[in-house]
């Protein structure tokens, strides 16, 4: 019996496209779904104040710990606050922390990495410091930084940024180290271009593609770390609803009302999943060489 070739793709083939996109191929369905999920979450977060039925901070002692109903879509928390409203509004701060931490770590890491990659004298010292920073577990460093600097939004972003910077520095440095051997850099030096010009105009653009990929991973991990920090009691002030804070408050009531952890947890996981998948796609498209190693 001969097999009849069909043009239909099975669901499986579509989904495997998530992980093994051939370089230069069109973007598969997986990343498209991830992109749609992410756009929906971002829009839902940004527009949250326009459509949420309740004030996320308004307490109502008559409606404590209610089950999901038409009035409260996901029920209420121990203070009678509407969980749906809190989760949707909470997304704003969580996403802000993710993007903020990604931008700040990439910016700082880029500057330090450029210096380390280009000036051999500074390289040894900078890299030893970065190695040492990487030896400290990120979560530990982050909780210590927040506990010592106070629970503000800025200090949470800084706390997440500090452990990420060394990874960016390493990446930028390795790109610069290989790029500086290229003939066009030698040519620029021979033509008498100034150091800052070579660094910024000729070397820095090489780092953009890998940094975009790294940035998306940092964004995902920052959202995750924010949740963990809040959960341990070292996140942004508990007044502000974030996914982490909502879950942290749900801890005590977990056995009677698991939804307080599961709903924000689900939103957060979906969001991180989408960001990571887009990061993988971007990596495969921007740098087919990295594909081989990571599969």
């Amino acid at each position: 019996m001969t097999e009849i070739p069909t043009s239909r793709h099975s669901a499986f083939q579509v989904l495997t496209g998530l992980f093994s996109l051939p370089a230069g191929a069109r973007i598969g369905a997986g990343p498209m779904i991830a992109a749609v999920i992410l756009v929906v979450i971002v829009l839902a977060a940004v527009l949250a104040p326009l459509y949420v039925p309740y004030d996320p901070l308004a307490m109502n002692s008559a409606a404590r710990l209610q089950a999901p109903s038409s009035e409260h879509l996901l029920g209420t928390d121990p203070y009678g606050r509407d969980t749906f409203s809190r989760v949707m509004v909470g997304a704003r701060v969580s996403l802000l922390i993710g993007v903020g931490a990604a931008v700040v770590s990439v910016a700082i890491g880029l500057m330090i990495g450029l210096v380390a990659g280009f000036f051999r004298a500074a390289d040894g010292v900078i890299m030893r410091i970065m190695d040492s920073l990487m030896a400290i577990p990120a979560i530990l460093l982050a909780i210590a930084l927040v506990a010592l600097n106070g629970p503000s939004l800025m200090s949470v972003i800084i706390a997440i940024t500090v452990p990420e910077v060394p990874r960016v520095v390493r990446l930028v440095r390795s790109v610069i180290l290989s790029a500086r051997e290229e003939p066009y850099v030698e040519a620029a030096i021979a033509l008498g271009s100034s150091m800052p010009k070579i660094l910024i105009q000729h070397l820095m653009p090489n780092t953009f593609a890998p940094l975009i990929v790294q940035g998306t991973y940092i964004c995902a991990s920052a959202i995750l770390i924010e949740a963990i920090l809040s959960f341990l009691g070292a996140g942004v002030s508990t007044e502000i609803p974030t996914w982490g804070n909502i879950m942290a408050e749900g801890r005590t009531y977990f056995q009677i009302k698991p939804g307080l952890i599961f709903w924000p947890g689900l939103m957060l996981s979906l969001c991180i999943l989408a960001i990571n998948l887009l990061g993988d796609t971007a990596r495969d498209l921007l740098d087919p060489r990295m594909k081989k190693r990571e599969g």
Partner: protein
Amino acid sequence: MFVYILKRIVATIPVMVIVAVFVFLLLRLTPGDPAAILAGDSASPDQLERIRDRLGLNDPLIVQFMRWMGQLMRGDLGTSLISNTSVSGMLIDRLGPTINIALMTIVISVALAVPMGVIAAWRHRTWVDFLVMSFSVLGFSVPVFVIGYILIQIFAIELRWVPVQGYRAPSDGIGPFFSRAILPSLTLATIYIALIARMTRASMLEVLGEDYIRTARAKGVRENVVLFRHALRNAAVPILTIIGTGFALLISGVVVTESVFNIPGIGRLTVDAILARDYPVIQAMILLTAGIYVFVNLLVDVSYSFFDPRIRY
């Protein structure tokens, strides 16, 4: 070989010194006064000054640092500001549960993740591969405490197979220990499995394309021998590296998992110390975890030559 190991050990010294400087500055240059914590809210400025004097907080930073380093060299980690007991004693008391759970996690992770990665690579682009990769992507996306609560909900609350929280030492009986340690270990293992399986698969995929694998198959070596003896051994170096660097994840995970499962280990100790601003304990914990991380990665580096005889030092 011996010289290489010695060199590597010497190379960890500057790293640890910089960690020490960093930890020291971190706690000295951020707002928050250890004397105020020790004195309580009702202390007068005069009392505060005396406590600062006693703790040596009025000395120049460099003097404080050298004194602290001197204590460290003698194995003295200081005294807790809160419980007023020796920090090294507190660590030793709390180390047991953490080590037991961490060991169980590593055993579970490696035992599951390496075969998962090997099979995924062997059956590349089939449903097995897809399943392993999905698990791996999911493992990175769900916060470790959410995994903990899901496991509690299923196995402790719905099925009632194991207790919800708590810890028993193995000396109290292996059954009670195991039933309480299995959920925290599985929780911690999730992200570690995701990491190791992903790297094993990638590394195996690379190796399985090599000529010697085709040769081995052509001369009729059994497939499991090809996979585990020929291929896995050659794929081992990146896998070992990720097990080593992933150790930082494990340490971070311990901090969270011990809070979820109410385990009296060093993770809980750290969180409590940080929230109470118990400076000597925080310093000791960051140094200890950084030390463990550096040591594990040293072991990993040294073990390369064991798995890959081409690497000679």
